[in-house]
């Protein structure tokens, strides 16, 4: 499959702080690519490098097979992006903002296209209001609308769901899935594990500017075991220690027992406890990606 984005040993430092360190990864055509990392891990800097907002100190960046530093102007016609906050000219209406950006991108039939994208992101009816009167969620939608204006082949979105209410989150995720189905390659940065887990097909994990892992979400997570916490009675520990579950037991804290299990083993463990007449008050487990991320980075994220 064709690599739409390819970073080769890219490095970027701001003074003594190395934001991106020898970073290499690829986004393939049709990917809904999750770019995951804690705050300050270098995600935004990487996306700025990809969109030409900052210049790499070393390494090479290829988009659609062409080197970004040599073909920026042509490549920008094929990319739509929303980097960091959705900032607009507050003294202009949403429509006027889109008109300006459409003209800069050389969009034909501007008015019809603006109507289309406004409808797509659910901003129809508010387009003539000044942007300074928009809520954060509305600006975020307008940010996605401007990124889609010129029908890009690659969409680069930096934390596009930050600050959205649950309905907004759902709408944007639906929209991203819909766009991916239309063949648009999407590179989505996020610190939300649940987001990447739910919608991404492939992903990369970055920490302190370095790449920790990349691959398909299914591949990276399939072999993962879950950390399962079971709250039961005080006698259950003795029963379990004399069974095959002893090998999976990793910690015991009063009535709370921790196991490392595959997803399929959870009902088996529940059945075992039930069979030995130990009540189960609660079973919880960390999501696979959360556990995987924690193991790789040593950083806990709240999803």
């Amino acid at each position: 499959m064709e690599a739409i984005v390819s970073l080769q040993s890219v490095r970027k430092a701001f003074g003594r702080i190395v934001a991106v360190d020898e970073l290499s990864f690829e986004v393939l055509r049709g990917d809904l690519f999750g770019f995951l990392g804690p705050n300050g891990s270098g995600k935004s800097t990487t996306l700025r490098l990809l969109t030409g907002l900052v210049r790499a100190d070393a390494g090479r960046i290829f988009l659609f097979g062409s080197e970004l530093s040599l073909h920026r102007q042509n490549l920008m016609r094929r990319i739509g992006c929303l980097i960091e906050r959705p900032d607009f000219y507050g003294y202009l209406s949403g429509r006027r903002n889109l008109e300006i950006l459409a003209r800069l991108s050389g969009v034909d039939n501007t008015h019809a296209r603006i109507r289309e994208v406004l409808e797509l992101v659910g901003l129809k009816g508010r387009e003539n209001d000044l942007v300074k009167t928009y809520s954060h969620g509305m600006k975020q939608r307008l940010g996605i609308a401007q990124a889609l204006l010129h029908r890009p082949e690659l969409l680069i979105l930096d934390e596009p769901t930050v600050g959205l209410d649950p309905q907004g989150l759902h709408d944007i995720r639906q929209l991203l899935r819909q766009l991916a189905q239309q063949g648009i390659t999407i590179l989505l940065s996020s610190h939300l594990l649940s987001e990447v887990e739910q919608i991404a097909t492939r992903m990369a994990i970055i920490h302190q500017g370095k790449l920790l892992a990349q691959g398909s979400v299914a591949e990276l997570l399939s072999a993962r075991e879950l950390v399962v916490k079971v709250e039961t009675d005080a006698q259950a520990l003795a029963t379990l220690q004399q069974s095959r579950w002893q090998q999976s037991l990793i910690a015991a804290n009063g009535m709370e027992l921790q196991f490392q299990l595959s997803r399929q083993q959870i009902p088996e463990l529940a059945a075992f406890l039930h069979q030995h007449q130990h009540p189960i008050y609660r079973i919880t487990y960390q999501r696979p990606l959360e556990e995987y991320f924690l193991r790789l980075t040593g950083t806990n994220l709240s999803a």
Partner: protein
Amino acid sequence: MTLIRIELSKVFSRPRSYIGFVVIAVIGAILLTGLSIDGQQYIQLLLQQLEHYVVIRGKIINGSLGAWIVLQTLIVHMPLLTALVAGDLISGEAASGTLRLLATRPPSRRAIVHSKFIAAACYSAALVGWLGIVAWGGGWLLMGSGDLLVLSTDRLIILPAHDLWWRFALALVLATLALTTVSALALWFSVMAENSVGPIVATISVVVLFTIIGTMEFPLFQRISPVLFTTHMAVWRELFYPELEFKRIVISVAVLLGHIAVFIALATYLFSRKDILT
């Protein structure tokens, strides 16, 4: 052209851009009203020493004198009004985050700087044009037309009314060039800043500093003075002498154009290499 049209529409959509027009109207109105009420007394005071040698017939306090006096404000507040808009063109967009929107579109960064400069130059021309309307139109409305008595330190000059329109028109063109130089300086500073206060203050500081250097009569300063753009910003005054010194005007125009070229080249170079982080 698209980029220039967009930049112009942004400049003229912002309330801040109209501060200059209001200030010019207010200052023009105050000066012209003051002149029409107390002008005679003021002129008598100025001509006190000459009254035994010169007999002046006709109406000295007229719209031409009013317009000429209002034009003097070009060197006082006009650079500030120009810097207020030009200094914000890039730094303001950096502060508001919209620079990211611009820089991730197909136009090159060089094209962005150049279009912003052209927008700033057009804004300077609009401000000077408005000053001309206020000075000439307001003066004519309040005091009627007439010959112009030029208040010069070394001699008394009277220019006939029919010989004035082209002098005023050309003066406005030269004033636009002078203010465009200030705009170019402000734009250069604007590239280096992340908010608009710094570039505006820095621009005005440079104008004030260079003006002081140009005014002081130290030998070193006198050697530097001819290459400072501030020395040539008042070149429009040359047009209010009966015989024009073309060589001086051409030199001043060349110095101002040279400064514009240098400031814009620096702005383009720095902006092309700038990391856009905000």
